[in-house]
């Protein structure tokens, strides 16, 4: 039962254009969402996060949008650069007992930015 779904395994974009990576979730109790980027042979690195009380968070070229009613979030990269080519993971969490959280991960979307 995949609670966090990234339905596009791969995405190819031209340099300078916008990259839009999508993520859907099924658990309405999730209240915190994160995007991680992973290069080959490296561990995932944190990119950007958003709390469920917001619908947008922006950090430089990266913006995450959250649509709670649709249980959907997206990561926009503008403008896309070849160095953005990586696998992008969406993750979600909810607060549990003892202020503990467990991240639920999507399967990832492989982004290729072509020069």
């Amino acid at each position, binding site marked *: 039962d995949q609670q*966090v779904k990234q339905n596009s395994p791969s995405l190819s974009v031209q340099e300078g254009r916008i990259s839009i990576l999508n993520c859907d979730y099924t658990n309405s109790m999730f209240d*915190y969402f*994160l995007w*991680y980027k992973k290069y080959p*042979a*490296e*561990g*995932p*690195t*944190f990119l950007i*996060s958003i*709390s469920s009380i917001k619908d947008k968070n922006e950090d430089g070229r990266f913006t995450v949008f959250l649509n709670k009613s649709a249980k959907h979030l997206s990561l926009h990269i503008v403008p896309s650069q070849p160095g953005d080519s990586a696998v992008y*993971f969406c*993750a979600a*969490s909810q*607060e549990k007992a*003892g*202020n*503990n*959280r*467990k*991240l639920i*991960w*999507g*399967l*990832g979307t492989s982004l290729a930015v072509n020069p």
Partner: protein
Amino acid sequence: EAGVAQSPRYKIIEKRQSVAFWCNPISGHATLYWYQQILGQGPKLLIQFQNNGVVDDSQLPKDRFSAERLKGVDSTLKIQPAKLEDSAVYLCASSAGTARNTIYFGEGSWLTVV
């Protein structure tokens, strides 16, 4: 600030052998995680420590996997005996706490079981 350190980076063993991975988290981070990532999948949490106590090990195959964090800092993950399906990247990560704290990952330990 030093990141999460892991060793070894790569390991090839035969099935039924044992292997151990070591992790040193970011200084001051109370929470330490071990994840298993199989190619084409997202990270799967194996075990989570808060200081030296286990918070979640529900997905740890306890018949063959074990992990410890004796002094609340470094941690080791052991697999004995290894199976072919254990071939994966083992990622150690740490965070300052278990609330909305960013999780920082190490580079991973790549295991191939032949």
